[in-house]
């Protein structure tokens, strides 16, 4: 079905709220159109378009809550979804941690929609793939890539008069270019909310250059090295750390932010003082909705790490009430301050070090110390006297982001990164980090 306008969405919300017989009712409508094209071995493998609009209704009788959803919007379907939610709520046990629907919120609009992204059509996607494939073919290389664009809207409303509607768009592109003999591999990632900021040709050339330069990798002994981590290499490492910023986990003693003897480590200096990270829904490079879809609370600009100190933790409404704190909307983006230097300039000022393009298969080894393991991939190089000397074999690392962010030498200019397994939109600088812990070699190219 077509995208709903604000008036259409409001009419549906009002109708749903009027149908509810429960003590309270919350409504959310999400609509999206996702287009994508996937290619491998220098040919398109799949191309698709998915459109969906979904209505989710949650009602409560006292502390008994039920949720149902549907993707049909005629009067009969609206009535059906409300009754289903009510049926589930009646069957559900009381939840002692239930929080009533929030009071009316002020949602200050953010620029999450771009006409240029919404205008992307199958020809545009095919052109991205063709550009990438043809550039690889010319050099006798093999490209495998994925381009995906989404345009949509979100509406939230409740029986206390909350209402929000906003349109959004974004795109993502990744390509891996490999040499025919499989000895070289390069990769690049790009994400943007505005298609005018995306250049498939420029991106593809970077993957090609890295593929060509990564042939004949030499083995370096595992150990602690100074590394220059490109933003895409740290996005998931940092993203996983913010997954552990939950106040309740910390207060309950089961987080790296738990304090010995009880309580949490809010205000403590755990990182290098160059580390400044905040959330800001209105940042023009990584705009996100001005509300948290789950709680419908308005989002705020908030410092998360300031001057290396833990500046705030995430509170659910239940835990905030219990601890006498104030809950705000969960963050949707993470912005890390940097300097003005590009990755190339960071390399130029490095005597000996390793450039990491991409990290892969990152998993938590120990939540106590946030120890993560993972591997480098698709462009790992040895740096000597300010220049890339030669490609090196990939490494496995075992490192905690807490240690990594304590060992910062220098930060470069932040860029936009949308991670594969991270829920945040991120703006992250390339980083020069001391003593990064590589524990074994991998033969993978």
């Amino acid at each position, binding site marked *: 079905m077509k995208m709903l306008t604000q008036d259409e969405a409001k009419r549906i919300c009002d109708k749903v709220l009027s149908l509810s017989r429960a003590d309270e009712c919350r409504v959310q409508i999400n609509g999206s159109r996702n287009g994508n094209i996937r290619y491998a071995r220098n040919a398109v493998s799949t191309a698709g378009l998915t459109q969906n609009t979904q209505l989710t209704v949650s009602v409560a009788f006292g502390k008994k809550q039920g949720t149902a959803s549907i993707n049909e919007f005629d009067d009969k379907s609206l009535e059906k979804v409300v009754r289903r939610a009510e049926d589930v709520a009646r069957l559900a046990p009381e939840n002692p941690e239930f929080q009533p629907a929030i009071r009316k919120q002020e949602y200050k609009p953010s620029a999450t929609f771009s006409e240029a992204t919404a205008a992307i059509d199958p020809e545009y996607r095919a052109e991205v793939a063709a550009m990438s494939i043809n550039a690889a073919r010319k050099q006798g290389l093999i490209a495998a890539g994925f381009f995906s664009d989404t345009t949509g809207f979100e509406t939230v409303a409740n029986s206390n008069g909350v209402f929000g509607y906003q349109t959004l768009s974004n795109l993502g592109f990744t390509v891996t270019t490999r040499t025919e003999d499989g000895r070289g591999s390069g990769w690049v990632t790009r994400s943007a909310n505005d298609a005018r900021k995306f250049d498939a040709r420029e991106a593809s050339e970077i993957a090609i250059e890295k593929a060509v330069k990564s042939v004949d990798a030499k083995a370096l002994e595992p150990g602690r090295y100074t590394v220059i981590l490109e933003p895409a290499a740290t996005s998931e490492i940092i993203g996983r750390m913010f997954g552990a910023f939950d106040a309740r986990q910390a207060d309950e003693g*089961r987080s790296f932010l738990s304090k010995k003897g009880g309580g949490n480590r809010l205000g403590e200096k755990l990182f290098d003082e160059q580390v400044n990270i905040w959330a800001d829904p209105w940042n023009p490079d990584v705009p996100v909705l001005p509300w948290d879809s789950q709680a419908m609370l308005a989002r705020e600009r908030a410092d998360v790490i300031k001057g290396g100190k833990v500046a705030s933790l995430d509170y659910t409404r239940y835990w905030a009430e219990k601890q006498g704190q104030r809950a705000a909307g969960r963050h949707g983006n993470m912005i890390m301050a940097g300097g003005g230097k590009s990755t190339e300039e960071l390399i130029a000022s490095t005597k000996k070090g390793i450039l990491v393009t991409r990290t892969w*298969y990152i998993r938590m080894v120990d939540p106590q110390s946030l120890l993560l393991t993972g591997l480098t991939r698709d462009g790992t190089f040895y740096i000597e006297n300010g220049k890339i000397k030669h490609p090196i074999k990939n490494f496995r690392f075992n490192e905690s982001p807490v240690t990594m962010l304590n060992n910062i030498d220098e930060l470069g200019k932040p860029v936009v990164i949308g991670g594969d397994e991270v829920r945040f939109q991120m703006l992250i600088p390339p980083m020069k980090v001391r003593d990064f812990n590589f524990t074994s070699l991998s033969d993978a190219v």
Partner: protein
Amino acid sequence: MERRSFLKVGAVAGGALLVPVFGNAIAAEELLNPMAVQFKKSLADAAMNAATKAGATYCDVRIGRYLNQFITTRDLNVEDIVNTESSGVGVRVIANGAYGFCSTNVMTLDSVADAARQAVAIAKANSKLQTEPVVLAPVKGVGEVAWATPFKKDWRAVPIAEKAEMLLAANKAGMEAGANFMRSMLFQVNQQKYFASTDGSYIDQDIHRLWSPFTATAVDKTSGKFRTRDGLSSPCSMGYEFFDCKPENRIKAAGGVTTLYKGAYDLIEDARAAGRQAKEKLTAKTVEPGKYDLVLSPEHLFLTIHESVGHATELDRVLGYEANYAGTSFATLDKWKSKNFKYGSDLVNIVADKTTPTSLGLVGYDDEGVASRRWDLIRNGVLVNYQATRDQAAIIGEKESHGCSYADSWSSVQFQRMPNVSLEAGKKKLTPDEMVKDIKKGIYILGRGSYSIDQQRYNFQFGGQLYFEIKNGKIVNQLEDVAYQSNTQEFWNACTALCDERDWRLGGSFFDGKGQPSQVSAVSHGSPTTRFNGINVINTARKIG
């Protein structure tokens, strides 16, 4: 890759948790009414006729109704109960030698015919960048047939209250035994899948799966230390009888360190053990890094098999179709062609199948209408085959597909997915206790923990849930901070002993992720308790700030 594709269900619910989205929430009473087969056949015929008329040389139609129920609990509270339903039709065609795919949730003759025509148009557009035409290995049409997961007790008919009570009883047992916090979940899946193709097949399948994971957490506030122990259950293709655990379903682990399960599961008993063991982990001895002989229980080894053999022998990875995300494979065609590539020691025999009873891969037919089968991947340590779909079979000289095609929804396009990949039991009589007796310096590992492997499946690092030190043939104490790092070929060549058939059990992954956009699938891996000599073990304890 073992990874979950998580979105939020019940996003507006106060206590909403991260659970996978499969579709829309529905009322329980509607779950039991299946769609009429004749209706599905008429939709499929409409799509195939429209596709053929528009110029398709091949067309398959998948009509799906996916019903799921998820229950999530935290300590003594039920946090969320979600019923979901998703229905629709996916049409795949070949035209001008290229694939095209289109799906719709509007289930009318006109709508599916329109989707078929769009799929043909997409195929024709894609053919312009095609370098070689798609050729499908032949499949003989099977006419109108039906297949269903064998089960005794339908999860859809078990009252929600009974399920919630079981989860809360497990949480209570864990907390009474030593855990400070408990989380438990119940995932229940029913896939009603109808497949039709221009080869003359009309296949109606009804597939059921279950999983009940939990985590027990113990905290020592004084030292600031916390430890977790996850459940040791295996997800399975069974009905709710999975929870009717009888004495014969219980197995004593080596040295009697804990109870394990086969064919059924006692969630409450395992939660009680987990509460006690999570607390014990707080004071367990930290491991001395070095080389150890590892004794890996099936509850742990399944994930190592999954990552280092399952994914490495996927033919689409080997050929480069997954190069941009999941990666390629070290198990290249030249190694297979040599007929002497030693993947593992002579004792290592690894088979693929979609036929093992109660396994997650168990189906009658795959999503290309190919009947399920069993075949060798590694025989006497040598790489002998891969996992292939219809368009790949000819590349490895097979006359037929292995039946490895799968799509996670009517709305997603089918592609090569892993069947069950299992390690055969040893031929000589051997129990886990007898295996331990022969070991001077070793570690016994149970349960799935941290896992990571490179994009060509060489270098991996795995952890578990429970570790026990073996000294001079005896299990002496519990260990902590253990992970082992190895290389796939070295590791499998270090396999020196396997317990026999009596000890063979399935483990499984409920949410295995692959592809762009990512799709999930469920797959099992069987093995006996197995010994690997001289594996590098690291200590994962770190101090921060």
